[in-house]
Each structure stands twice: as structure tokens, then as C-alpha cells.
């Protein structure tokens, strides 16, 4: 335990009665919970800055039910919520998802469970008699309901990007080493930041499983759990108030809908990023004298180990970390240059050696995007929510993020003292904002900035939700401030119920924000089996043509099998494919050399992605499939309820010209007919 070193620290009140030792001095006396609001301690006036102290311990009087059955009372809502969750997942059918994803598929018991859990958490965390373990149990319950539901419900892992990372791990295991752009093209970027994938390659072999697909559905839960300890430590650096800490953690998890917790390097790198911040905030605050340097070398080694792992795993996170650490230097007590310099040196060392091939190729584009804020914030073509479900869930996500950020602003505004004390956290929250100027990061920068702002934003948002936060004035001798007036009963009631409603709304809004697009992200076992069959029979040098990359195993064998996703091509070419599907696609696919083959793959994941993101409609994609199916240039390889695979014939059958000519006319007429239909 660090002894209080400044008059202000010695004078400040202690809002955690159950953890306080016997007070050594009158100034350190813990407040008497039963005696109602506490008078300001006189020694608070001795603060050098004459700074008022926030007392978050304005809690109801203690009652005597700490032991016996009452001690386990907080567990009742938690167990009820988990029982409802179990019932809900056993009675939820995900085989027919609509445009609202999991939202409409979930059994109503799930929503009831989430509401019970939130209410139980709120009343438990605000009760000073409850041990802190109950709040932790509720947060773990939230993580199970939030991040494990999909893993339990869906028989296959979600998300095409997770499947892509499975492909990268598989490739590393096959190649046995890192490869260059000459060997694997654009995918060499993963070989230049291989930390996460190398570790997963080892894990697959050590577990003795076939691939990461065996466990990657659980990664959102694992990566979210990894964030818990760093988050707690960061928050506990600024407050001892259990309510503030745990409500901040709750809001962080609820507001973290952006989906970067899936099986990915950034999920792990973000946990390490928070770990570095926790270490710097706790151990690098200036304490003066020789003690300020004591043990610093060992801590710097620890910091370097964490930074090295971040740098070898992910491109963006080191930049965000450097920005955060530099922002921290704006506060006098964190004006030590060791953490930012260590981070920047390690980052630069990696960029100028292992990652140099990618960076030198991408540098012109990166320089062009600097300063293009509009372009960097834009989400790009193929990312426009289309249809009632996609639009509604997108708005739910925006409202959720907007609410958390607005609450954070309200918390900063209300809590003047907290704002001052937690200024480093405020700076860390603002540090990612300049990234908007720097890069679009593949149209994802807005989501990444939101993610990196969230730890600080959630802390201040929690401060806005806490009722009856009093600002204790400095002592009468100083007379710089007076105590806040006591709140009325009505206001106290609103102060309790209002925040609960906000917390409840935010918690429920997480589900559509996070799982509202599961129709896009879920690939049923039939779809996985269909694509697997394609790759099982495709010889080396083959090419797979598909509408987009939203299907499982899309990057299977990417070292030997090429891809072409026509919806990512020039719009005029897409229009040509819509007008003359089979002929245009056949022409696109003829470049594949023997012994490779050219395949056309269309699955329900591609349909969902195209329809819900404003690309081609289901009708247009169906017409493409029918055209290919009817064309003599293609032969059917496999099909099931989730899609079909066709192969381009090597020999051009007789009469093809005539057939394609007829198709062209039909295609144009069909397209015009579709347009007329859309107008009606």
C-alpha cells in the first residue's frame, strides 16, 4: 500500500468502508454510513490546489442483513437471468434469420433475462453492503449473455473475417514460414504482422484440433475477458468507488458493439494496449526524487515485452498506443518520455524491417489519405445499410454509441473534480481522434476510433449515471467552495430510476447493434460444406469467382488458389455482369491456366451481404445464378440449400455463341424489367 504522500491524498475521504483499515488520523476516518451525508473534512482545505473532493459514497444507510440468506440475495437476479438465458438459447431457432439478425430470432426469455441481469447489477453495485465480488459476478454474467450466446446458438463460427484469419493460420502451418508478396500477393501483409497467427498456429497443433474453426466462435468471450483486468486497473487508478468502477466496466462492454472482439489480432492487441495503459497510469506517474526512478528499468522491460507483442501483431494498435502515451505526456504528472519513446522506437524498428515491404507499397495511398477527413470517415461502397432490418440495427448502434458519448460528456460536465483527477483518462479518450486525419484504414477508422475512445468514455459515462454525487467543499477556513445542497426525495428517486432506465436501454440496444447483422455473418453448415467441397476438389492454380468475399473458407488455400469478387470491381463491369451474366463471367474466368480450373460460387452469405449492404438485389443475383446454370459454358459441380458451385468448361461447346447472344438480349430486357419493377 502506498502511503498518502500529499496533504490532499491524506485528507481525502474513503468511500469503501468494508475495505478500510482503522483510521490512523481523524482526517483518514472512514465516513459513517449510517449517519447520512458526511460533512467535509476540515483537512481537505489543505489541498495545495484548494481542490474540492468528490465523495461518491453517498449511499443508503447500512442495514443488518449482511449474513445469512440475505447475503446471497444479490445472487437471485443473477441466477434468474442466467436461467432465463439458458431457457432462451434452448428455444431459439437460428435456421431462418431475417434482416434483423438474431434480434427477431431470440426467444423473449433472453430479453427478460438481460433486463433482470441489468436491474440486479444496478441495485447490487449501488449497495455498499455487498462485497465487490457480486458486481464482478454480474459483469461475468453480462459477458456470457453478450459474447457467448452466438457461440452457443450457431453451429458454425460467425463472421467472414474470422474465417479469413482461420485461413491465414492454416496457410502458416502449411508454409511453415513467412512468405513475401511475390508468393502470396496482398495476403503477405499477414506474414509481416504474424504474432497472433503464429501463436494460433501453435495452439492448433498443441490442442490437436483440425483448425482454429474448432474454437474461434468462443473468441469474443475470451478476448472480452482479457479486457477485464486492465480495465479494472485503469479505473481503480482514479477512483476507489466500486460503483463507478463496475458501472464503467458495464458500460464499456455494452458500448463495445463494434465487433472487434472476434478471432483477430486486433482483439488481443487491444487487450495488450489497455494493459500498457494500466501499467503506465499506475507505475509511471511522477512521484519525484530517487524513488521516481526506482524499479523503472524493470517496469520498462515489462512494458517493452507488451509493446513488442502488440507491434508484431497489428498495424493500427501501436499507432493508437503511441498517440495515447503522447497525449498522457500533456499531464504534468505523466510527463515521462520513457513509455512513448519505447513504443515509438519498437514500432519504427518493426516498420523499417519486417513490415517494410507492405509499408513501402502502401505508403503512397497512406500519404494521399492524410488530411482527407471526409474520405477517412466514409464507410465506402457496399457498406450502406439497405432494408428495414439493416437500417434499424444500424441506427440502434449509432444511438448506443451516441448515448455513451453524450453520457461521457455529461459526466465530465457534472463531475468537475473527477474530471480533474481523471484528466489522463480524458486525454487517452481523445487521443484516437486525430487518426481521422491520418487514414481511412479500409473504411473502418470510425469504428476503430470509437473502440479506442471507449474505455475513457465509459468511465465518465458511468459518472454521469451515478446518483447523488456530492462535491465536498474545502474547509471553512479556505472558503473556496460550499457543499452542494441536499437533493430532494423526488430528485433522489429520479436519480435512481433514470440511470437504471438508461443502463437498461443501453444493455438491450447492444443486442441489435452487435447481432443485428447475423444474417450476413452466419454461415450454416451446408454453406461451409459446399465451399469445403469446392476447395477439396480444386487443383492448384485454380480460381474462385464469387459475388463478394462473404462466405466461409473464402481464403482457404490462398497460396495456391486465386479469387475474384466481382462486386468489388469497377461499377461498369458489375453492370455488364448483370446485363450478360454467363458470357461476361465466362470471359473473366478464361484466363485460368491448366491444370487449374475456374469455379463460380454463389452462396447465401453473398446474397445477404449484397442485399443488406446496398449492392445487387437478391433478384439480380438470382438472375446471374440462373444465367450461369443455363449456360452451356458452365457445368454444375455441387449445390445444396445454401448455394451452388459451377465450373467453367475447358472446351467451348458448339452453339455457345448463339446461346450467349440470346442471353444478352434477355439480360438487357431482364435488367430493364428489374428497373421498372423497382420504380413501381
Amino acid at each position, binding site marked *: 500500500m502506498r502511503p498518502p504522500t500529499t496533504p490532499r491524498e491524506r485528507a*481525502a475521504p474513503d468511500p*469503501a468502508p468494508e475495505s478500510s483499515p482503522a483510521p490512523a488520523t481523524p482526517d483518514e476516518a472512514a465516513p459513517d454510513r449510517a449517519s447520512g451525508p458526511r460533512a467535509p473534512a476540515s483537512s481537505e482545505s489543505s489541498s495545495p490546489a484548494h481542490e474540492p473532493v468528490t465523495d461518491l459514497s453517498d449511499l443508503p444507510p447500512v442495514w443488518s442483513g449482511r449474513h445469512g440468506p440475505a447475503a446471497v440475495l444479490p445472487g437471485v437476479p443473477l441466477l434468474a437471468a442466467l436461467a432465463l438465458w439458458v431457457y432462451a438459447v434452448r428455444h431459439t431457432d437460428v435456421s431462418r434469420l431475417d434482416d434483423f439478425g438474431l434480434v427477431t430470432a431470440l426467444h423473449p426469455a433472453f430479453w427478460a433475462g438481460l433486463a433482470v441481469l441489468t436491474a440486479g447489477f444496478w441495485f447490487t453495485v449501488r449497495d455498499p453492503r455487498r462485497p465487490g465480488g457480486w458486481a464482478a459476478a454480474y459483469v461475468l454474467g453480462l459477458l456470457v449473455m453478450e459474447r457467448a450466446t452466438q457461440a452457443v446458438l450457431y453451429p458454425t463460427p460467425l463472421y467472414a473475417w474470422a474465417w479469413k484469419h482461420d485461413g491465414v493460420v492454416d496457410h502458416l502451418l502449411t508454409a511453415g*514460414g513467412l512468405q513475401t508478396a511475390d508468393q502470396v500477393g496482398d495476403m503477405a501483409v499477414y506474414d509481416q504482422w504474424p504474432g497472433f497467427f503464429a*501463436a494460433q498456429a501453435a*495452439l492448433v497443433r*498443441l490442442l*490437436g484440433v483440425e483448425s482454429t474453426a474448432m474454437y474461434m466462435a468462443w473468441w469474443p468471450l475470451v478476448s472480452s475477458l*482479457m479486457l477485464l483486468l486492465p480495465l479494472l486497473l485503469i479505473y481503480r487508478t482514479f477512483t*476507489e468507488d466500486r460503483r463507478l468502477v463496475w458501472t464503467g466496466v458495464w458500460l464499456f462492454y455494452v458500448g463495445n458493439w463494434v465487433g472487434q472482439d472476434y478471432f483477430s489480432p486486433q482483439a488481443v492487441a487491444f487487450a495488450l494496449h489497455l494493459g500498457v495503459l494500466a501499467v503506465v497510469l499506475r507505475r509511471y506517474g511522477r512521484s519525484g526524487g530517487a524513488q521516481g526512478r*526506482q524499479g523503472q528499468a524493470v517496469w520498462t522491460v515489462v512494458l517493452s515485452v507488451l509493446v513488442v507483442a502488440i507491434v508484431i501483431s497489428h498495424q493500427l494498435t501501436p499507432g493508437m498506443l503511441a498517440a495515447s502515451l503522447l497525449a498522457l505526456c500533456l499531464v504534468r504528472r505523466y510527463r515521462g518520455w520513457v513509455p512513448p519513446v519505447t513504443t515509438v522506437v519498437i514500432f519504427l524498428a518493426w516498420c523499417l524491417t519486417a513490415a517494410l515491404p507492405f509499408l513501402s507499397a502502401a505508403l503512397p495511398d497512406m500519404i494521399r489519405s492524410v488530411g482527407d477527413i471526409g474520405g477517412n470517415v466514409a464507410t465506402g461502397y457496399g457498406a450502406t445499410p439497405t432494408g428495414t432490418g439493416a437500417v434499424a440495427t444500424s441506427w440502434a448502434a449509432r444511438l448506443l454509441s451516441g448515448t455513451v458519448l453524450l453520457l461521457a460528456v455529461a459526466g465530465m460536465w457534472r463531475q468537475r473534480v473527477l474530471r480533474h483527477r481523471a484528466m489522463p483518462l480524458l486525454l487517452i479518450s481523445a487521443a484516437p481522434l486525430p487518426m481521422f486525419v491520418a487514414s481511412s484504414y479500409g473504411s473502418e477508422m470510425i469504428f476503430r476510433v470509437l473502440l479506442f475512445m471507449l474505455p475513457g468514455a465509459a468511465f465518465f459515462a458511468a459518472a454521469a449515471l451515478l446518483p447523488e454525487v456530492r462535491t465536498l467543499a474545502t474547509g471553512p477556513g479556505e472558503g473556496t467552495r460550499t457543499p452542494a445542497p441536499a437533493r430532494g426525495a423526488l430528485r433522489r428517486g429520479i436519480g435512481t430510476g433514470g440511470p437504471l432506465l438508461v443502463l437498461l436501454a443501453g444493455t438491450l440496444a447492444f443486442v441489435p447493434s452487435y447481432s443485428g447483422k447475423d444474417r450476413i455473418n452466419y454461415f450454416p453448415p451446408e454453406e461451409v460444406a459446399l465451399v469445403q467441397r469446392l476447395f477439396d476438389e480444386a487443383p492448384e492454380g485454380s480460381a474462385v469467382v464469387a459475388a463478394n468475399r462473404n462466405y466461409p473458407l473464402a481464403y482457404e488455400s490462398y497460396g495456391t488458389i486465386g479469387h475474384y469478387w466481382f462486386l468489388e470491381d469497377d461499377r461498369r463491369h458489375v453492370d455488364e455482369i448483370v446485363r450478360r451474366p454467363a458470357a461476361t463471367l465466362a470471359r473473366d474466368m478464361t484466363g485460368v491456366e491448366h491444370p487449374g480450373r475456374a469455379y463460380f460460387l454463389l452462396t447465401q452469405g453473398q446474397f445477404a451481404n449484397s442485399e443488406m449492404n446496398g449492392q445487387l438485389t437478391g433478384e439480380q443475383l438470382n438472375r446471374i445464378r440462373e444465367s450461369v446454370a443455363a449456360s452451356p459454358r458452365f457445368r454444375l459441380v455441387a449445390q445444396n440449400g445454401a448455394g451452388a458451385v459451377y465450373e467453367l468448361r475447358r472446351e467451348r461447346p458448339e452453339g455457345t455463341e448463339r446461346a450467349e447472344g440470346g442471353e444478352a438480349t434477355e439480360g438487357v430486357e431482364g435488367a430493364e424489367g428489374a428497373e421498372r419493377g423497382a420504380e413501381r
Partner: protein
Amino acid sequence: MTPQDFVVRMLPPFGGWLALAALALPGGSPLRGAAVAAFLAAGPGAALVGLCGPALRARPARGPVESHGADFARRSDLLERMMLGVLLSVCAVMTVATVLIATHTFSAWRVLLALTLLTTLAAFCPRLRASPPAPGTSTTRKGSAL
């Protein structure tokens, strides 16, 4: 060193050797998975935190301004050690695996063996201690009334 300290100190390397032994079990076996996952998630980090613990603790931690509870600070330190145990383990796995992949000497068995040896070495090494302040160096904060 008390017997209890010895057990705590030897637990991480024991976990590593146990995980190595568990590789003899069939692939996908829950026991093998549990032994491997538990060691990779906490073993190397716990050993490193144990090795550096005294030196790390020499540097005071910054806590909340209003803090007076010794328990609060103790719990924060415990949380910090747990966090470092997990995160350093993850870092060690990623770094060792990357080095082996980059040098074309990768095999999962080598990754686990290297981590187990590292953990064993850390457990047997004498604990690192921060050097005491130089004599005559003022430990009083500038501007402090103390």
C-alpha cells in the same frame, strides 16, 4: 522460503511440463486442451512476474487521490499481478511462435518446450530486486512540506 512459497513458485514450470506430457493424449482431448490452455494463458507470465516481483514492487503505484484503504491498494496490486501474468504469457507465446516461424524452425512442440524452459528458468532464478537509492539522494518530493 516457506513450503507454500516453494509450491507457488514451482507451479508454473510444473504446468509447463504437465502440458508437454499432455501432448501424449489424443488430439482434441479435453484434458490435453485444459493443460495446454492453462499453461499458455498464465504459466510463463506468472513465472516472470514472480521473478521480477520484488523489483516491480519497489516502484510505488499511483492510486486514487481519495484512497486510504490498504486493502484497496493490496487488491489493486493483486489485480495487476494477475493481469501481467496473463498478458505476459500471451506476449511470450506470440513472440516465441513468431521467432520460430520467422526462422523456419516452427513446430508447436518447440514453442511449448521453449516456453516451459523459460518458465522453469524464471522459477529457479533468484528474485530480481531494485537497487536501493544511492546514499545521500533525497527522497523528498520537490516542494513537499515533508
